């Protein structure tokens, strides 16, 4: 969801670096062991990892994934032992329910105090007692549009079904996000388990398909910057970056409501260095570090102390990064819907895709 390059290129680049650069780290294995971190692509300031290694003497093996769904089988099958993973809300819930996660020992994570209580409160929707997950980034899903290419300011999902923007629309290529848009447009919950509502949402998406230029994930960002399309569905965290690059772009959370999401650090059951993992999570909650990450990836931080440190007042008070409460009240988090509904959503999505 938050990778910045096409994951496949990343994967191949990774393969190349492991072949040619594989021996780089092995000589300097940390004196305090190592941890394996599994995070979204381009979701951290690389300097932060070096600083962590220097400060703690723990070597970090860093790996990246593209979607929650890509990450899940690797962690659940135990094929690779990760120490820290950064899934989204509904995936955290699924992993808790399946007993894949280790409870955190907050004695080792004193920096949790820097995290705004409000976000810990919202995290309870998927982690009821805040036992498993420390929020890392959060944001909304909304519409990014090019002011010079649309008639009037946009405030509704309806615009994604407007004939006059045929071929100018970029949709998210992931089941839950695409269905969230259609369900919200129809005024339903984005966690709907009502077959009639889902059928209606599917019809909407099928109707929309001829108008869509492409279904993409991160490419939305670059395509919008390059004026390839007028309207795109995007994560708020990318919006600040795109606006920096192209000042014609505007981000809005539609009035019908949208998705608000939280990605957080969790420790899988089969981790090999729990203390190291907790040290890493603690390090990430340090205000200075959280600020570095925020400035690098531009995804909203739940770290209150870090937000205080933001120097640029425009960013600090940005409605995109830190929307008002009334916007958030319109938004819902994704819940894990269970295996049965996962499959139903997937099959409906395939029907949309094959039209």
């Amino acid at each position: 969801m938050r990778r910045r390059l096409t994951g496949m290129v990343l994967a191949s680049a990774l393969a190349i670096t492991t072949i040619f650069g594989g021996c780089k780290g092995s000589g300097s294995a940390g004196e305090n062991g190592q941890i394996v971190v599994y995070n979204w692509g381009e979701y951290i300031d690389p300097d932060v990892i070096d600083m962590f290694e220097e400060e703690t003497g723990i070597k970090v093996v860093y790996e990246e994934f593209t979607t929650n769904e890509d990450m899940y089988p690797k962690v659940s099958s135990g094929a690779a032992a990760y120490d820290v993973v950064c899934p989204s809300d509904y995936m955290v819930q699924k992993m808790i329910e399946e007993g894949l996660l280790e409870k955190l020992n907050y004695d080792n994570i004193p920096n949790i105090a820097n995290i705004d209580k409000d976000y810990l409160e919202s995290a309870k929707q998927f982690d009821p007692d805040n036992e498993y997950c420390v929020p890392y980034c959060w944001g909304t899903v909304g519409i990014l549009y090019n002011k010079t290419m649309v008639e009037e300011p946009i405030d509704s999902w309806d615009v994604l079904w407007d004939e006059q923007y045929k071929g100018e629309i970029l949709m998210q290529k992931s089941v839950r996000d695409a269905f969230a848009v259609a369900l919200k447009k129809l005024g339903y919950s984005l966690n709907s388990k009502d077959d009639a509502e889902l059928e209606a949402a599917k019809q909407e998406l099928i109707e929309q398909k001829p108008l869509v230029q492409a279904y993409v994930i991160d490419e939305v960002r670059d395509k919008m910057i390059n004026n390839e399309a007028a309207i795109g569905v995007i994560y708020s965290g990318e919006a600040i970056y795109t606006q920096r690059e192209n000042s014609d772009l505007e981000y809005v959370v539609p009035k019908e409501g949208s998705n608000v999401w939280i990605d957080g650090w969790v420790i899988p059951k089969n981790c090999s260095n729990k203390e190291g993992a907790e040290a890493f999570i603690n390090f990430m909650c340090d205000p200075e570090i959280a600020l570095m990450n925020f400035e690098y990836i531009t995804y909203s931080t739940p770290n209150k102390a870090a937000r205080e440190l933001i120097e640029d007042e425009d960013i600090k008070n940005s409605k995109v990064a830190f929307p008002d409460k009334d916007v958030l009240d319109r938004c819902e988090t994704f819940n894990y819907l269970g295996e049965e509904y996962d499959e139903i959503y997937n099959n409906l999505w395939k029907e949309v895709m094959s039209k």
Partner: protein
Amino acid sequence: MNKKSLAYPYIIWMIGFIVLPLIMVVYYGLTDNTGSFTLDNLTEILVDYNYKALWLALGLSLISTLICLILAYPLAMILKKISLNQHSFIILLFILPMWMNFLLRTLAWQTLLERNGVINSILSMLNLPKLNIINTPYAIILGMVYNFLPFMVLPIYNVIVKIDPNVINAGKDLGASNVQVFTKIILPLSVPGIISGITMVFIPALTTFVISDLLGGGKILLIGNVIEQEFTQAGNWHVGSGMSLVLMIFILLSMAILAKYDKKGEGTAF
């Protein structure tokens, strides 16, 4: 040292990376979540959207294979005619892009074809109409032809270059016209190369999911994309494997045809 023992590393390699994975695909394809035997994963292909993706993939890869053949055959003939220096240069031109990663090459096409991409910028500079094929099946065909053309050229070239000039001269001495020489001598003798080229283009084109993903804008689902999504998005390895088995039927069919026409293995690419 016994010569046979030299083969062991290859046997271990083949067992580990070809046979075992195949056995796993067959196992997953024929079982359900509980591990009991089922054929449901195979019949999944008959579901409307999977079936359509298969037909579309067959259609697009057939078209691409045909275009490759039409482009490659004359080129192979030209290569045979020109001097050794020149033709190794042309072959180098064909092989050179293959040193670059396949994904990067396909991504480059995305950038080239985009609405405000390189090609359209040049066209609009020349006041020519824009080319709008990105995110359509045409772009996918272009991507397939571009990526797989060398696999058609090389086997055909390899076969044609081995045709004994004396056979052609004999034909001419006996009064055959150029057309007759081509239809009665060169074409029949190059069949193994053609068949080999067809399989080498058709199979990867049929199974690709990257090209359709990058150049089709995610709007066009081929059977490769369906299988990929079963594994990555849906996390359903059983259905994914089941459909891979169905796809394998087509691959085995083309390999059977190859074996029938190319008994001596002449038409191999390298």
